[in-house]
């Protein structure tokens, strides 16, 4: 026992010594606010898709234009970035700038006192500030403080459909729920998968299908009230109805067998192979389609939104979506380092950055015209569609993390035959608990 105490004591001492070291280093770093500054940037632009390549080029251009700044950028896949940001947030060791998500994540980081408001910088460039689409900054605004601006726009819910298959079986592009059901029926009779779905990573059904479907049934106002547990609950009949509609869709065999066992990539494969007539995915799927789909599938692919639902309270001309990721700036930055960080923010999400993003076939939350001759026709179609479509809230952006996890698992259960009422109750309990109500 004595030996153990000694060992523990020694361990504790060495821990303190290590901690001491790192504190000292940090202090030294902050002291050097001379001309040369180093900025650490964490992002998720790791892929070979047009957007990632563009964003990395913007970073490189910034580096060339600002020799006094040393950029240390680190790219991580999206899920990894989210987890890692959480981990460093717990240790209060945020990188100087980082890609972050609006709403839930921004709120949690702000609550942890990790973010720096950018109001002053934003107000110094009004022509930039005023050019964002309506409500674009809401997800980054807490108590009149703005913590970032979106670098893109991410509608999470579009139906990509193969026109060739619709023509072949004389099916109308569904505008109403009944038409969708007829389409599902016809395709099933002809051994075509109506809608490909890959819900193993279980946010897919929630983000791409259910968020829009539920909004059609309940309306956005009800949902936002339920999120705040203020006058609405997830056990309300509206929400149970929304769950039932999704379950009925599953019962009508809208999705192929085993959809809970394959992932989003395999889901797109089914569509690429022409095995499915439709696939429901976010705007991000477009880049994948353009670069990976076989030509005859790509040329026949068109985009629409989830059809209207009879008796629903929601706006039938909307689709779920979030304004895209923005760059968060660490609270700890001061002086020259802070100025450099603001410059980088402007380089990536200012007018030039937005233009570059749009040119890489990515939707943006900023008013710019698209040059149709430069872009892929499918992207032009999407861009045109978005002009008439409103954005409604996405479940995983608004709900607490714990309730999101319960919802995602609940939807899997629902599609396997679980009772809508039970699932509604679990979601209600999780959200109420997370809010401490």
């Amino acid at each position, binding site marked *: 026992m004595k030996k153990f105490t000694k060992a523990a004591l*020694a361990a504790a001492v060495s821990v303190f010594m290590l901690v001491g070291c790192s504190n000292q280093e940090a202090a030294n770093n902050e002291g050097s606010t001379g001309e040369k500054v180093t900025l650490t940037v964490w992002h998720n632009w790791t892929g070979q898709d047009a957007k990632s390549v563009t964003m990395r080029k913007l970073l490189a251009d910034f580096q060339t234009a600002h020799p006094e700044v040393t950029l240390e950028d680190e790219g991580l896949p999206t899920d990894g970035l989210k987890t890692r940001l959480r981990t460093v947030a717990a240790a209060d060791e945020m990188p100087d700038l980082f890609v972050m998500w609006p709403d839930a994540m921004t709120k949690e980081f702000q609550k942890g006192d990790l973010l720096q408001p950018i109001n002053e910088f934003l107000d110094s460039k009004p022509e930039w500030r005023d050019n964002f689409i309506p409500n674009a900054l809401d997800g980054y605004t807490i108590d009149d403080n703005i913590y970032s601006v979106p670098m893109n726009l991410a509608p999470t819910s579009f139906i990509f459909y193969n026109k060739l298959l619709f023509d072949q079986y004389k099916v109308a592009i569904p505008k109403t729920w009944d038409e969708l059901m007829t389409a599902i029926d016809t395709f099933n009779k002809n051994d075509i998968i109506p809608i490909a779905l890959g819900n193993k990573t279980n946010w897919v059904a929630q983000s791409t299908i259910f968020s829009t479907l539920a909004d059609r049934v309940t309306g956005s106002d009800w949902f936002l009230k339920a999120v705040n547990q203020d006058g609405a609950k997830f056990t309300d009949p509206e929400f149970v109805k929304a769950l039932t509609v999704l379950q009925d869709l599953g019962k009508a065999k809208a999705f192929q067998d085993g959809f809970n066992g*394959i992932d989003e990539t395999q889901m797109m494969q089914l569509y690429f192979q022409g095995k499915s007539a439709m696939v429901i995915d976010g705007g991000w799927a477009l880049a994948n389609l353009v670069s990976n789909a076989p030509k005859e599938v790509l040329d026949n692919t068109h985009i629409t939104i989830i059809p209207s639902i009879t008796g629903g309270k929601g706006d039938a001309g909307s689709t779920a979506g979030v304004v895209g990721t923005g760059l968060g700036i660490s609270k700890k930055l001061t002086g020259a380092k802070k100025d450099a960080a603001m410059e980088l923010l402007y380089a990536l999400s200012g007018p030039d950055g937005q233009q570059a993003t749009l040119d890489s076939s990515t939707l943006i939350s900023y008013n710019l015209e698209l040059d149709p001759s430069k872009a892929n026709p499918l992207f032009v179609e999407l861009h045109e569609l978005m002009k008439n479509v409103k954005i409604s809230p996405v479940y995983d952006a608004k709900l607490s993390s714990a309730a999101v996890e319960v919802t995602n698992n609940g939807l899997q259960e629902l599609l396997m035959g679980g009772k809508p009422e039970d699932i509604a109750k679990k979601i209600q309990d999780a959200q109420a608990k997370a809010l401490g109500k």
Partner: protein
Amino acid sequence: MNTLRSRRFIIMGLLPAMLIYALFVFVPVIWSAYYGFFNWSGIGASSFIGLDNYVEIVHDPIFWRALKNNFIFVGAAVLGQVPLALILAILLSKNNFLQRFLRSAIFLPMVLSTVVIGMIWQYIYHPQIGILNFFLDTLGLESWKLQWLSDGKIAIFALIPPLIWSFVGLYLIIFMSALQNIPGEIHDAAQLDGATGLRKLASISLPMIWGTVQVALVLCISGSLKSFDLVYIMTKGGPAHATELLATYMYNSTFTSYRYGFGSAISTTIVLISLILIGSSQWITSRKPKQ
């Protein structure tokens, strides 16, 4: 004097390893146990809630399902991997080309990354283009076709073949080396006494390698309690928690729901369960009279 000096030397030699071990094993375990008493989202303030996390764990049906699944894994590993490896080790003990080839083939999954194994089996089980369902079709066994990974009732069992497949090579090597260490004279003596086949296996080979079998069992139990990667890649604990293991449950609670306090409490529970299992297995084996 001499023993004192050598003891001091031993302590000096062990100290760095002990320190590193304490720093990276004991300290985190203790910290994690400490966080288990808090309601903490990982960011910002935490509040002390005593044993509430543990109370919630005990009342959480997902925890019990995860524990049950973990025991299914332990059972499958102990009853599947170890006997299978033993049989293979006995069958493949000759040194000709075919057997050498088979041995390498069985060992191959050990050097593959779990991600690769997960991907391979995902495509074997794929509901539309999977080899398994295709194979059943060709044999005219359409009614046996199942949605292997997406049916909540069978998904956990569908994970067992990849689990066994990926680890059987390790135990095969362990058993083969144990079998080769049995002195040739004993085999000769057994032959003189007329013991062959099963009789020789039961009376000579098995008792001679029993110690190794016990070690393999301990490795097997602790390995299956720690299972995480294969399940995380193939099903992520889904659909709807059907294949949740203690480790995936802990990971999802901590890094998906961002409930660090609750996740820490689960980790501590896993440590306790493992300690109890290992303790009782040690107790059972040490009580066995030595030959």
